[in-house]
């Protein structure tokens, strides 16, 4: 006897099972469908799947821009020396009288004799450095 192909029987069984669904299961599937449609309702026609990624992307860009604004100004500041501007001008004597010592304060004149003596005083002979005592070897 020619018996049906098992695959043909599997297909027929699948069709029969899909038609003859238990009432509770059919009701749950209906409820699931309505829930899914209700959840998706407010988005109807508003946002394609690719557009939905736009919000996180925009948020990311905004965050990056804010971070850049916070970080960039300190980076753009010149180094502290430059930030302080040009160094204050040190007065440089250009007057020949000042350069010749005419304007030397009197207290420096008093020290001049001492410094002259100090320069001419003989130096004591230099002593060689004392050897370091490492102690007896163990």
């Amino acid at each position: 006897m020619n018996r049906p192909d098992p695959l043909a029987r599997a297909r027929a069984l699948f069709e029969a099972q899909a038609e003859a669904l238990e009432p509770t299961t059919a009701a749950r599937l209906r409820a699931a469908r309505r829930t899914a449609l209700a959840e998706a309702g407010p988005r109807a026609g508003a946002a394609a799947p690719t557009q939905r990624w736009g919000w996180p992307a925009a948020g990311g860009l905004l965050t990056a821009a804010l971070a850049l604004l916070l970080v960039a100004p300190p980076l753009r500041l010149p180094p502290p020396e430059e930030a302080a501007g040009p160094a204050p001008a040190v007065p440089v004597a250009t007057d020949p009288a000042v350069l010749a010592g005419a304007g030397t304060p009197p207290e420096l004149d008093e020290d001049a004799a001492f410094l002259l003596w100090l320069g001419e005083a003989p130096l004591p002979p230099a002593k060689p450095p004392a050897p370091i005592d490492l102690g007896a070897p163990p």
Partner: protein
Amino acid sequence: MVAMDGLHTAPTMTRPGAHDAGLETMALDGFLASVERRGFRMAELALGHREDALDAVQDAMVAFLAYRERPQAEWPALFFAVLRSRITDRHRRNAVRRRVLAVFGRHDADEEAEDPLARLPDPGAGPDQADERQRAWSALGAALRALPRRQREAFLLRELQGLSVAEAAIAMGCSEGSIKTHLFRAQAALRKHLEDWR
């Protein structure tokens, strides 16, 4: 090839304009109504668990609606692509759960926790006929779950859901040649598994 009455009647509805949300919702409702039962049975065969199958179909419906802007002709392939992905996710999750429970030497009580009322047979069939059909259904599920995943998916999508080779390739994210290869191997394995059905 199985005639896909329910599946192929819905997409023949005219595509509503994007602005006409009411018509679009009706079209989506009609399409989902046409695939929900078949999708559930496919998930049940693949997962072997009714509650998991219901959850997978519900997740797939929600996720599918993200593709509502696509042409209706693409909806069946897209829906079953999403459902296939959800089934795979649940397979992995269940495998991890079983491994974790096995470490602690516990049984997965959820596997057995089926609602007895939901298992009531179709009132149109006699008790013997319903019982035999249930046994055959369990045997088919066991044989399918014994197949490698890609072979099982190819068989479910192509043979049982009736998708074309091109649609099945979209749903599985592979070439049409791969679909044919997987399907050929699945058919050979199932003929062997279900030999006693002859």
